[in-house]
Each structure stands twice: as C-alpha cells, then as structure tokens.
C-alpha cells in the first residue's frame, strides 16, 4: 500500500512572536523552525501502518513550502519514511491553496491512506486534512487518538468535547493525528545517515487562487499584571471577596 504523510515546517512552540514589518506575518528573524509537533504523530502512525502491511508498502512524505522545509522532510526520512516530495512555494498561501496542491500530489503518488497532524502550530488552522480529503473525495477522520486498520476497514477514535467518538470508515482515507495517538520514535543514527541518501523530489506547488486574505497581523492587548494579594492562606478570604465582588465570576 502507498501511504503518504503531509508535514509542515513551523516555528518552535517556544518562539516569542513579533509582527513583521509588512504587518501581515511574523518577523522570521532569529526563529528556530521544526517539524510541526502533531506531524510527528502522523509520521509515526504512517510508519507503524507500513510495518503492519509489510514490505510491499511504502511511505512518502510531502511538504509545501520554501527550501528550508527540506529540513523537516529530512527529519521524517530519518525516522524511516522512504522518500520525500517538496512542493515549492516561497509565498504564504491559505489552507485551501495548500490543500489543492497536496491533493494533486497525493493523487499523483497514488496514496490511499494519508496522515496529517491535526493542526499546524503556526496558523492553527486545523482544517488542511479535511479540505484535502474533500478535494480527493476520500473519507476523513480528524483529531484521531486511536487508529486501527484491517484490510481496507478503518476504526478510529477521535477526540471530542468531553469524550471520544469511535468512527468507522474505509480506504481511501485521510487521518489527522492528535497527541496521545502514539509515541513518535527518535531517529536513529543509522536513520539520520540513510536519510541523507534518500531522494527529495522538488517541484513547484500547483498554482491556486487565494480565497482568504490577511489584512493585518497584530499583537493581542497585553494583559495588565494584577496584584499579589498575599503569601499564604490568610489571603484566601480577600481572594474570594475579589472574585465575587470585583470580578463577579463566582
């Protein structure tokens, strides 16, 4: 079986964000980029599925972005993915634009099962997997924390408010992965060495009309620091009074 995993190259979550001079995106100066944390669960699940299906199956990693996205592709290759594709685009695009380019490539590769992270931690869109599924007319289960596949039948659990839904569907399908699904493996030294020899195919990402437009990026209103009302439980009465009478939240 052909399995694809779609990954995104994003600023590390410890990044302090500054708005760039165009006021449309962040200032990239001094930022460390990493594989999107949720995409690591996607890579792991793709590799586990490949191991289950055996030798005639194959995993390809696909990423859309600039040259630097190759670092994230290499990371997936080092974990054990077989080959990589970089859909080159140096300009920002909206989720639908990303999904259209990914859908074309997934079709070209012929992948029947595709894993995504449930959301990227930059634009926090959490919809690229679902959009891609709809473009390909694939089934889709999002925010998955448990995944089982038997032949072409899939049973997965997805996180919802206050619980989980157990969902059934069939291939072809897209699964978006949530923390808790698995423990992503570390790349071994051998994996890192062999990743250097694996091919990354580069091609321009398919053109797409942008449907949404960022007018302005800005910082949230900074929260005014409040006050420390005490250093032990003798401050509790005062706290409860403030919550009742000033904040009126209890």
């Amino acid at each position, binding site marked *: 079986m052909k399995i694809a995993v779609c990954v995104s190259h994003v600023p590390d979550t410890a990044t302090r964000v500054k708005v760039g001079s165009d006021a449309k995106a962040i200032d990239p100066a001094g930022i460390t980029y990493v594989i999107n*944390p949720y995409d690591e669960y996607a890579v792991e699940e793709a590799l586990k599925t490949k191991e289950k299906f055996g030798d005639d199956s194959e995993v390809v990693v696909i990423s859309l972005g600039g040259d630097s996205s190759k670092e994230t592709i290499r990371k997936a290759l080092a974990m054990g993915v077989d080959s990589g594709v970089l859909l080159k685009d140096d300009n920002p695009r909206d989720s639908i634009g990303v999904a259209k380019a990914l859908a074309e490539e997934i079709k070209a590769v012929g992948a029947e099962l595709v894993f995504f992270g449930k959301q990227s931690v930059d634009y926090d869109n959490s919809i690229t997997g679902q959009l891609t599924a709809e473009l390909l007319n694939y089934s889709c289960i999002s925010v998955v924390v448990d995944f089982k596949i038997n032949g072409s039948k899939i049973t997965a659990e997805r996180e919802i408010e206050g*619980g989980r839904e157990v969902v059934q569907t069939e291939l072809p399908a897209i699964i978006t992965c949530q923390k808790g699904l698995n423990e992503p493996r570390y790349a071994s030294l051998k994996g890192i060495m062999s990743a250097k020899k694996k091919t990354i195919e580069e091609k321009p990402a398919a053109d797409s009309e942008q449907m949404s437009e960022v007018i302005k990026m800005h910082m949230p209103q900074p929260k005014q620091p409040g006050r420390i009302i005490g250093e032990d439980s003798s401050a509790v009465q005062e706290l409860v009074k403030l919550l009742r009478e000033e904040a009126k939240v209890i």
Partner: protein
Amino acid sequence: MAAKILAILEQRDGLLKRSAFETVQQASQLAKDLSLEAEAVVVGGDVENINEISNYGIAKIVHLKNSDLSNYSSSGYTSAVSDYAKETDADYLIFSNTALGKDLAPRVSIRLSAGCIIDCIKLDSSSGELVATRPVYAGKALVDVKLNSAKKVITIRPNVFKAVPLDTPLNPEIEVKEISSPDLKTKVIEVKKSEGKIDVAEADIIVSGGRGMKGPENFHLVEELADVLGAAVGASRAVVDAGWRSHGEQVGQTGKTVSPSLYIACGISGAIQHLAGMSSSKYIVAINKDKDAPIFNIADYGIAGDIFEVLPVLTEEIKKIK
C-alpha cells in the same frame, strides 16, 4: 431576494449545545449588519430544545432530519448541509468551532467552492464586508482576515461570543426536511463519554495544575476545588508529558486554547506555550510559591504561597459561599 446566512447548529444526544445559541446570535447580528436573511439549520434525529433557537434572534429554523444522523457522520453531515446550502443559494455559513464544526466546516466549504476562516474571536462588518479576527500561534498574535470568494464559511470560537436571550423571543417557524438515505461512508458507532467531567474547551471556569503539584497523587486538591466551582480540570504540558494527567486536559500551544471567565493556575510557572493557550481568559488567578514566576505577569490576582497550604483553604472558603 436578500442574500442568505445559515447558522449550522450542533446537537448532541438530541439537545442543542450552548455554542449553538452563540452561533445563532452571531448569525442574527451579521444578518442585520450585512442585510442578509438568516436561517438556523439543525442536522440530526429528534431535537428536544429546537424551539429555543428563536430566543436568540432567528425565527426560521430548518431541521434536516434522519435518525441515522443523530450521531455525527462526517460524510452524512457534509452532504446534508452542502445540499441545503446549494438549494437555498446561501452566501454565508457560520458554525461553532467545536470538534464537529472544525471537521464539518472545511468539507462543506470545498463543496460550495467557498473560502473558509476558522476559530474567529471577533467579527466586524462595519465596513460593509465581513472582517474576522482569529488567533494564530496559539494566541501569541492575531490576524484580521477577509474572504474574497463569493461564498463564505466561518467558524466562531465557543465561549467567546456570549449568547444572551432576547427580551421578546421570536415566534419559531420550523420546517422539517427528511434526509433520505444519508451518506454514511464515515460514521460514529459509539460515543465514549468521560464520566461526569467538564471539558476544558467548554468550561466557564478552569482550575489547572502544573508541575508545582509535585505528583499525580496531589491532583485531588485541584479536582476538589474544580468540583465546588463546577469547573473543568486543566493541566500544563509538563504534567501531561510526565503522564500525570491525560492530554484531553492540556491547556496551551500543543493542547487546547481556552477563554473561560475564570482560570485558576495552581503550581504553574507559566511557560510561553501555556500562557499562549490561556491568557485570553477573562480573569486569571495564580497560586505559586515562586513570586517571580511569569504566570504572575498576567494574573489578575495572585497568591505567592505554598499550593498545598492555600488550595484546601480556598476550596473550603468557596464551599461556604456556594
């Protein structure tokens, strides 16, 4: 004929969720601002409180009904909603940004060739076109976004837009449309509920614990305070990664971004990933023995003391007033 806005509402177990009424109210507001005709759309089997929709500003209610759609089906709901939106030539669709909304809205937007903005925390149509504000980087920054497509799909973050019932409710006009043979290619066969727990994403009050709790065996102190407040229990990434608490409770950049009325941080120092996920809470209380912890920079009220001494007293004091 005026252009149309559809509020797509979520029911669970035959009851509309609170976030559904928030969606109704925002749709009704946009309808006024942009001279649209508003309709509320509910997918599912029997829905007990469907009449309540009109209390929040929309009289026209369409119930896309089939008992096989009582539980969510990604394929079934996508077809039902998209077909209805095409049939009525709707220009705007508004959903709540819940697990269901986030799954459904993007699929519908592709079917309708509509642009899609998700997780909006502010909607402004004063310029005659809709400009939505949404957080990015887990709330470290915000973007103002507009859609250039003819059809538009948006989702709004639950708990941000409060639903306030009208003084004089409208007279509901409910149209039931039976959905014959829904597409159940993807279907929910079981819903596993976490017993009696309130989810952090939906809670109005959250009591969160961090590494300062020193171990999973001490979290009963957090749970007891949450209990007396009717609050959800949250957790920092450190304690989730250590296996003390489940990921469903994690607040922050790789967990949930929350905006409750009151957030009580217990033994949480306030790493940037955590602050990003909760700093838009209306009121923040921090209890932490390190008075230099970053959490105090954003807390409205702080107690720089021993969590194990302060928490039980706080729980007792709140019990007294409840």
